[in-house]
């Protein structure tokens, strides 16, 4: 029996969401009286690998085969399944991400595992294995009983606040046989914003809607986001109109995010928009219409013109 955590390294750094996953996995190991092993696939520096120990992993497996250098959901799932078998893991923890989403399902299929997506709390082991997950796009929660030998938990951002120690974890090379079938999808190219704060990972998100009037006005949104080290997001019409890239669209049909702080600028607060952001810890709404429905779901509100308010907020942040 053990807990296995799949951890991701992005641009050379252990992802924040993966730090959360490792800490969560270590807590589950504590609950079940076993140990937590982290597996990292692809390139990663020795320091970054060993740093998994700071969040509670007692061992790190590193699969560094050059064929695994680029993220590949199918191949990574095979590697993690092999690691789970080697370690006798009965709980596998991942932080939700576009790579993890592609892997969890394949893993569940391979291991005939009970799978809970969007987990928001540590499991309750008092009577079986029960986990709380977010359903109906953030509008409700379900308490799920997981009944298979192997359980897979995909955790939502901000499920747990990781604590860091000085511990480092020993790193072992992991070299499972790779299956050609897992490389049937050819990557022909990609466009990715680099250096920016990734939206699903961001603690603070500045989001804007049709109230901004046009793409040429996004400078004031980006300025505030930069000052707060925040990611930018947008409403659906804004990405439909091509004012902003689709990857920024949040809501029912876009990304579901749960940052510490969500600042909505010139967004009316339609129920489909709220669905994607209502699990944010604190919500700020800036809208010139005092009747905008979003104010009912906000913690702080300003009735005002974004073109006046945003630059002043940016200035106030810079003065902190």
């Amino acid at each position, binding site marked *: 029996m053990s807990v296995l955590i799949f951890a991701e390294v992005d641009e050379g750094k252990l992802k924040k969401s993966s730090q959360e996953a490792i800490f969560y996995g270590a807590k589950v190991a504590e609950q079940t009286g076993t140990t937590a092993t982290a597996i990292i696939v692809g390139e990663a520096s020795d320091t970054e690998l060993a740093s998994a120990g700071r969040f509670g992993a007692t061992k790190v497996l590193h699969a560094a085969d050059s064929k695994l250098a680029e993220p590949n*959901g*199918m191949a990574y799932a095979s590697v993690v399944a092999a690691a789970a078998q080697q370690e006798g893991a009965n709980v596998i923890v991942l932080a939700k991400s*576009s790579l993890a*989403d*592609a892997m*969890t*399902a*394949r893993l*569940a*299929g391979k291991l*005939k595992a*009970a*799978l809970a*997506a*969007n987990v928001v709390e540590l499991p309750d082991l008092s009577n079986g294995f029960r986990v709380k997950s977010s359903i*109906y*796009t953030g*509008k*409700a929660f*379900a*308490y*799920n*009983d997981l*009944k298979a030998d192997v359980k897979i938990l995909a955790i939502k951002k901000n499920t747990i606040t990781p604590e860091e120690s000085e511990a480092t974890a020993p790193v072992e090379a992991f070299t499972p046989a790779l299956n050609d*079938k897992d490389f*049937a*999808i*050819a*990557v*022909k190219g*990609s*466009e*990715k*914003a680099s250096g920016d704060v990734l939206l*699903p990972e961001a*603690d603070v998100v500045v989001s804007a809607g049709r109230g901004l009037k046009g793409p040429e006005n996004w400078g004031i949104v980006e300025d505030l986001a930069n000052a*707060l080290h925040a990611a930018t997001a947008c409403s659906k019409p804004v990405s*439909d109109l091509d004012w902003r*890239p*689709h*990857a920024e669209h949040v809501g*029912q049909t876009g990304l579901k995010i749960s940052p510490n*702080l969500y600042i909505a600028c010139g967004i009316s607060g339609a129920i*489909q928009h709220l669905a994607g952001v*209502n699990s944010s810890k*604190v919500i*700020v709404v800036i809208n010139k219409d005092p009747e905008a429905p979003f*104010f009912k779901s906000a*913690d*702080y*509100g*300003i*009735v*005002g013109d974004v073109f*006046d308010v945003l630059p*002043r*907020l940016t*200035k*106030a*942040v810079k003065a902190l």
Partner: protein
Amino acid sequence: MKILVCVTSVPDTTTKIAFTDNNTKLNKAGVTFITGPYDDYALARAVELKEKTGASVTVLNVGEADSEPVIRKCLAIGADDAIRVNAEPTDAYFVAEQIAAIAKENNYDLILMGRESIDYNGGQVHGIVGEMLGLPSISPVMQLDIDGDTAKITREIEGGKEQLEAKLPLVLGCQEPIAEWKIPNMRGIMTARTKPLKVVEPAGTDKLTTVASYELPAPRGAVKMIPADQAETLIQLLRTEAKVI
């Protein structure tokens, strides 16, 4: 080319969710059920491919009899026939088993699904089906073109997108802007009534998860309004009161 589109029957996106029976059942009173919005994108692309290349489009739902209006609507939009596996879809693995069983019998070139259901938001069924059939699975797919036996795909990744190519058959989870949602026209609605809808009993019985109970999120406290001419105080409050910056 044979295309299978898997659809869910889910509460309309404007539904205020509530539960009954001691928080163990969704309160369906007054709830309108619709095709999952992502499934609608998958269906719209399938119908476009049919119009362009003469593909056949079959719609599949794992659900009870009350999902038939949603299935009929898919037929009205342009699917040729439909299959309903008569079972309560209460577990992603179970649902995937049903879809895989139907797919094994019929050898589809493309199995299109939504990126995720909007009730359980698992985003899992396509991957599990892919694994069960030994086929590649890709999600979320924003663009899909077929060139002979090759699919050219744009997939969304964090902060961007990537271009992929893979040989058919494939299992795909779809999202916008793969196609525009389609609205059924009168002729479609008329012909949908006579299109075949086959009901089959479920294969296998594996349910690896069950829901013990549901819960609604705690309501947010009252909003604190800050006058626009004192906007700067917001930043102070976010630091000292909310402690989020």
